[in-house]
């Protein structure tokens, strides 16, 4: 019956697409240029999209206040990808063919970003994913070639998995690790693979590897099994909703070992779901810490705080950098022609963002540093910084 529901949803979506397509897109008016935001406004990762939208709007407001780019103002058009791969392709299609955007920021989720690349590539419109850390977002796994219209402002999975494996061996002195992987996410599988390889290379041993699916709620059976394997670290490279429940239930089962993950943990919801005490002795790798003391970042944190009454998270920081990066490319290109913007993006060198310096390598990946963040009584605290 679930299948029937899926069909019904698809049918409804198709009907809607046809109806919308019938209306036809409005041409951009003379003074504004549209940038697309293919973002997670609803679904399991809705908080990522909300942060990104806030940050992009802040960036565009600041750019426009200084007179815009090449004499024109920039505007954001958001399409909701519902945190799903299929919806991300639809959203990309809508932004390009209907809203006539000149470039796109998003999606944040790797699975969604990978699915959407085919759409923006065939339309020859550049897309920057702020947080899609899976290698395949910018590289075609079939032939190993770089996708010419896709970029990212974050580092890639291998680096996060490697960083955490090194941190686990060197700082946490872990010898036996267990892994719990979100089997429905390319992101989690990517992190897990590189964690595993590097942890073993460092002399560690993987004593258990278990899988779960998004929207699962009961992990006690799996955690009981993991506890019996007696690991001294649990690596959970998933997203905050399930991670929160895993940490909570794991602590309830008497699993007191350190737990670690990737930047999917970075959400204000995590301490609410897991509980502040349960979250002690947990670590995650991330691209960004609002405690970073560069002037650029301090200004950004202050402005963001003023506008939204919240500290920016990593999704906000990277989306902000993506927006500034696009504006820089438009300036360099001295044009709003999508092809020229794309050319200029590929040549970006030493761009200063709030999350660090961005220079794209041949795979369109930026080379930049990573931070390890520790939870202390529900607060994220900066633990250490690891350079590439």
């Amino acid at each position, binding site marked *: 019956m679930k299948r029937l529901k899926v069909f019904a949803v698809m049918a409804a979506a198709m009907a809607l697409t046809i109806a919308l397509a019938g209306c036809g897109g409005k041409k951009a008016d003379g003074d504004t240029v549209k940038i697309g935001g293919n973002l997670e406004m609803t679904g399991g990762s809705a*908080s990522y999209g909300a942060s990104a939208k806030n940050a992009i709007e802040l960036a565009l407001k600041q750019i426009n206040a200084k007179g815009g780019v090449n004499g024109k103002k920039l505007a954001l058009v958001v399409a909701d990808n519902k945190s799903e791969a299929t919806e991300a392709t639809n959203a990309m299609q809508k932004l390009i063919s209907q809203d006539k955007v000149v470039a796109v920021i998003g999606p944040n989720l790797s699975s969604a970003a990978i699915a959407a690349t085919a759409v923006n590539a065939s339309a020859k419109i550049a897309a920057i994913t702020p947080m899609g850390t899976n290698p395949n977002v910018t590289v075609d796994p079939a032939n190993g070639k770089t996708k010419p219209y896709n970029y990212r402002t974050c580092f890639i999975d291998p680096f996060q998995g490697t960083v955490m494996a090194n941190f686990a061996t060197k700082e946490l002195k872990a010898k036996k690790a267990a892994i719990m992987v979100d089997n429905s996410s390319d992101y989690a599988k990517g992190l897990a693979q590189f964690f595993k390889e590097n942890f073993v290379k460092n002399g560690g041993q993987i004593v258990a590897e278990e899988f779960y699916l998004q929207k699962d709620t009961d992990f006690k059976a799996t955690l009981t099994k993991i506890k019996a394997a007696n690991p001294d670290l649990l690596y959970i490279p998933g997203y905050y909703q399930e991670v929160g429940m895993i940490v909570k239930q794991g602590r309830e089962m008497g699993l007191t070992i350190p737990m670690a993950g990737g930047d999917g943990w970075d959400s204000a919801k995590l301490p609410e779901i897991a509980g502040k005490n349960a979250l002690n002795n947990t670590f995650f790798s991330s691209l960004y810490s609002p405690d970073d003391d560069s002037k650029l970042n301090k200004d950004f944190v202050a402005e963001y705080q003023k506008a939204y009454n919240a500290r920016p998270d990593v999704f906000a920081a990277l989306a902000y950098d993506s927006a500034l990066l696009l504006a820089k490319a438009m300036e360099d290109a001295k044009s709003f022609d999508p092809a020229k913007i794309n050319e200029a993006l590929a040549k970006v060198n030493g761009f200063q963002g709030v999350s660090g310096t961005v220079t794209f390598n041949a795979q369109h990946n930026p080379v930049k540093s990573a931070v390890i963040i520790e939870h202390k009584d529900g607060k994220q605290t900066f633990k250490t910084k690891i350079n590439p």
Partner: protein
Amino acid sequence: MDMGSLLHQFIQQMINGISLGSIYALIALGYTMIYGIIKLINFAHGDIYMVGAYLGFIATTYLGFGFLPAIIFAMLGAGLAGIIIERVAYRPMRNAPRIAILITAIGVSFFLEYTMMLIASPQPRTFPAIFEATVYHLGPLVVNSQQILILVSALVLMVALSYIVNKTKAGMAMRAVSFDADAAQLMGINVDKTISLTFALGSALAAAGGVLVGIYYNSIDPLMGMMPGMKAFIAAVLGGIGIIPGAMAGGLILGVVEALVSGFISSTFRDAASFAILILILLYKPTGLLGKNVREKV
């Protein structure tokens, strides 16, 4: 691994499975009651469970209720929702073909899911800690107070339901309508009222399950009813759809099977195992474990 630790692990998995199974059982009861009385697989039932969880969330977060008032609030609210849904969506279809009313149920399911998304936003919500989990260690075994709470609440509700169905006049009316609605009407039973009551009871039980889940897992969202709804459906079929003790047994068995499969085979096979059970039951014993040729129906 030595036998001792294997045994401990086995018992621990039984504990995990029973607490999960009692939730399936609570939802399955509503499925089975509604099927028993109007032969409708109410696919919106999982969403009533979601509505119950949100009502519990409102009661604890905004109204500051404790556990007991919150669960009663949610049960009353969801019971009312059940009555309204039956009145608006199912009653006009009562003499329509079975497939039409089934499709209506799917429509109601979508309506509830997406209306809740509109009202409460699709972001997951977290329950306030109204019932802090105390962890008890029995040797190597771990049980927490919330698991006990779930099991006890489920048992109390099931006993109350059995009492209502078997010992009260309203229960007798329900059994009569289930057996033969026309004859019951001739005997002076108000069939519409009885069906409304069945929906109210079934929905209230699902809501109780929703609140317990909210407290236990600490996270609720508008689509949370989909999977548990399917699982409870399997539980109801497993026990024999239309049979109240069957739904309880089916729920518990399903919970335990899932825990054992995740614990001793692989967590990837957990859902596959549940659906395999559904297929096997439908193939070899479609009336369910407790099903007889002449079925005792609600």
